């Protein structure tokens, strides 16, 4: 469980390409934070604050102040295929965007876009959880630019932050039968880092509630699969 940075806020950035579900993933984080806060209030009211140890992290973010959630999104004019960055700020946040070098964790649904947002925003102490499946830009498809080598992207992320956890989440989603749950797999992996200021149950409950009709079960599987992969990568030291 993390502690808040100097501004009393935990900053998460979800990076991806339009159509990958990054905005939904970001909103799940924001909603989970509010749900967690409500849980804290409830336990405080019945005198069991200590019982839920993990929820303390969310209170640490802003001692004595109500928890604020801010989500700032940047995306272009394209309906599909454009770069999308969502800054999710939990704690005592006011501004919609993280300050430079301020992201505690980047959840990267696409490697190139993860690097693009990590350069200005990743904290030197920050962690990247990144899907290695490329979403090739039109510039490359038309033969007018080259996609950077995956190794160099991961090495660059490593130089910018403290830790990189990388795996092919799109393939993992396809194994579960639906490429669209890639974003949930990534949320699971991010949750396994212990850096998110909400506990696993709150995240699961929020995902179940926010998932499109009829997909709650599949999304639960995806969340667990993401956790499993990230945990096994951490154990085997396969994280770069």
């Amino acid at each position: 469980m993390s502690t808040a940075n100097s501004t009393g806020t935990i900053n998460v950035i979800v990076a991806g390409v339009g159509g990958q579900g990054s905005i939904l993933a970001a909103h799940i984080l924001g909603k989970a934070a509010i749900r967690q806060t409500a849980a804290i209030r409830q336990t405080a009211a019945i005198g069991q604050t200590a019982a839920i140890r993990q929820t303390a992290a969310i209170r640490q973010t802003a001692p004595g102040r109500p928890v604020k959630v801010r989500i700032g999104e940047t995306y272009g004019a394209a309906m599909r295929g454009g770069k999308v960055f969502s800054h999710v700020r939990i704690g005592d946040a006011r501004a919609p965007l993280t300050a430079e070098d301020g992201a505690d964790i980047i959840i990267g649904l696409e490697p190139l876009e993860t690097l693009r947002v990590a350069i200005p925003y990743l904290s030197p102490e920050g962690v990247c959880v990144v899907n290695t499946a490329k979403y090739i830009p039109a510039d490359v498809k038309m033969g007018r630019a080259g996609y950077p080598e995956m190794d160099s992207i991961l090495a660059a992320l490593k130089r910018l932050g403290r830790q990189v956890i990388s795996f092919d989440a799109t393939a993992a989603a396809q194994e579960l039968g639906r490429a669209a749950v890639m974003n949930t797999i990534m949320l699971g992996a991010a949750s396994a880092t212990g850096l998110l200021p909400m506990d696993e149950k709150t995240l699961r409950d929020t995902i179940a509630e926010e998932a499109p009709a009829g997909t709650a079960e599949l999304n639960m599987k995806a969340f667990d699969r993401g956790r499993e992969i990230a945990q096994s990568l951490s154990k085997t030291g396969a994280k770069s």
Partner: protein
Amino acid sequence: MKDDLHLAARPGTEAVMLGNHALARGAVEAGVHLVTAYPGTPSSEIAEALCDAASEQGFHAQWSTNEKVAIDIAAGAALVGMRSLVAMKSAGLNVAMDTFVTVPYGGVKGGFVVVVADDPDAHFSSTEHDSRPLAKQAEILCLEPADGGEGKEMVRQAFDISEKLELPVMVRSVSRVSHGSANVTLGEIRKVQRRPHFNKHYGFSYRWDVYGPPGTRFRHEWLLRQFPKIQAYVDESPFNELVMAPGGRLGVIASGLGSAYALEAIRTLGLEGKVHWCKLGVAFPLPEKKVAEVLAACDTLLVVEEGIDWIETLVRGIAQKTGARCRVTGKGDGLPIPLYGEINTDMVIASLAPLAGKRAPADPKRKALKDELSAGLCPRSSTLCAGCPHLGAYWGLRQALQKQGKDSVHILNGDIGCYEQAGYGIFAENLSSADDHKVWKAQSVYEMLDTIYVMGSALGMAQGQSLAGYDRGKIVAIAGDSSFFHGNLPAVANAAWNGGNVLFMVLDNRWTAMTGHQPSPTTGRVGDGRSAVSLDIVETSKALGVKNVLQASAFDVKSVKEAIEKAWTLEGAVIVVISGECRLQWLRRHRKDVRPVTKVDPDRCNGCGICLPLGCPALGLGPDGKKTEIDQILCNSCGLCAQVCARQAISAAPVETETVKAGPVKNEGGAK
């Protein structure tokens, strides 16, 4: 049913809401009776959510044909005593300007709220245009929220304030407030039971009659007499905040979103309680006494705001008036907060730190690392979607243009809509103005458009180029169905009337797609989902006096090319209506029926690359860079690439299209 406004939740509940939804919720909590809007990013979700909520909550909400019509309808409702709201983007306020500056002369009876979402950094706009000074032009109150939660409160209270002042109230949002999300505490939903009322005596403030005595100047005097009431409200407004720092000589005044960045900067620099702090939720007029108090206490005052140096200029005026000797600094004063683009916390830190005698944090080694890594990035240019009908329209135009003389320089004028992406370029290319002597050829659909100004301007500009005698190439104007009815009708009439050899392509994809697929006048639906008449662009054009109106299907490239070539044999303004429904909307109804059937035969494909400039994001060179491949996840089976390939190496199923179900009008989108 989706409940973006959390109408089913109990008051007091905390919810994470999109800024625009929070603004919309404020209107519902205030018991709004009528809502109008024209879609425009970043404002569209306000009316979208209100259209969804309208029938259940018992108010009227509509997408109007443009912002001028929208503001007139909302004003009409306010004149008969009902609570109305009109929402638009910054450019929309320009369209609505005539009414916006005139209604205050008459005053209103019912609460009238004008929500304008500006777009600093022009993420989705032709300009960065700051709407706040227009509140001064109209001599009305302008509120400016720092986030969605405050925005909800402002919209809610704006109706009461408007009724008290008998004037419209403007609420100015920006992209990051409208498109950002924040936790919001839901309030009670108030039902305001009211019957529309009107009376014929000109003396009533809501009934301004420009002809009748005593006339315009008298009404302007009346408007100015309201101003002290506005000022009195502002002085006590809960949206302004003043926290003095005893003994401090440095102050910060920050408005709207600027206050969010400024607060974080102050905190980061450890200046909380050490600088005088004035947060403004009102952008016009300013709370003069509060500002004067800060000015009197400071040697230096930093103004932080999103947009132009509007607050800064007003604060300087107050300083002059009160004889303050304080240096007022900000965007207009050479600090590292430029007058263009958006501000952020880092810019405020960099500006504030030296004023406070602190060093702004800087790490040259990290900066060098970032520069090194940035150089290795590759761009991701904006594209049209896979299967977009505009791809077919542009390919047909490209083929027709390629048959013209080699030295021709055609001018392609674009209106505002998805199709404008044909002018965005491929970012990987670096052109320089030193190369002006060369004849440039568009290498792909994304380099075709030459001008993209504002809604309704393409046709007029094309007409002007023609009447000025431009003869080095063809002159084309391109607009969509929604923009056709938004701003092009007068231009079409003018082209029919005044002449000029212009080809006007209208790409009818049946939706206002770029702003999120709101219904357009051709959809056959209105905002709340009910069926409606589907307006016919061909018949409308003819009725406006255009003699030659041709038709083609966007999913049949040959039909487009032939229609354009035919148009060029005709004199005067010629309209070619190219129909084909937005593929994303079509897929929402037909996802189940679509199979990945578009395939490249690797034996036939010789890697000539002729298909790549089509610009479909599903098409690309394979890993070896030698043959075309189709991304089976992205492909939406439109079949356009098969029509483009010269070697019949791409096979596709015949295109299936059909019109919107709710629409009563015959299908013009069908290809075959």
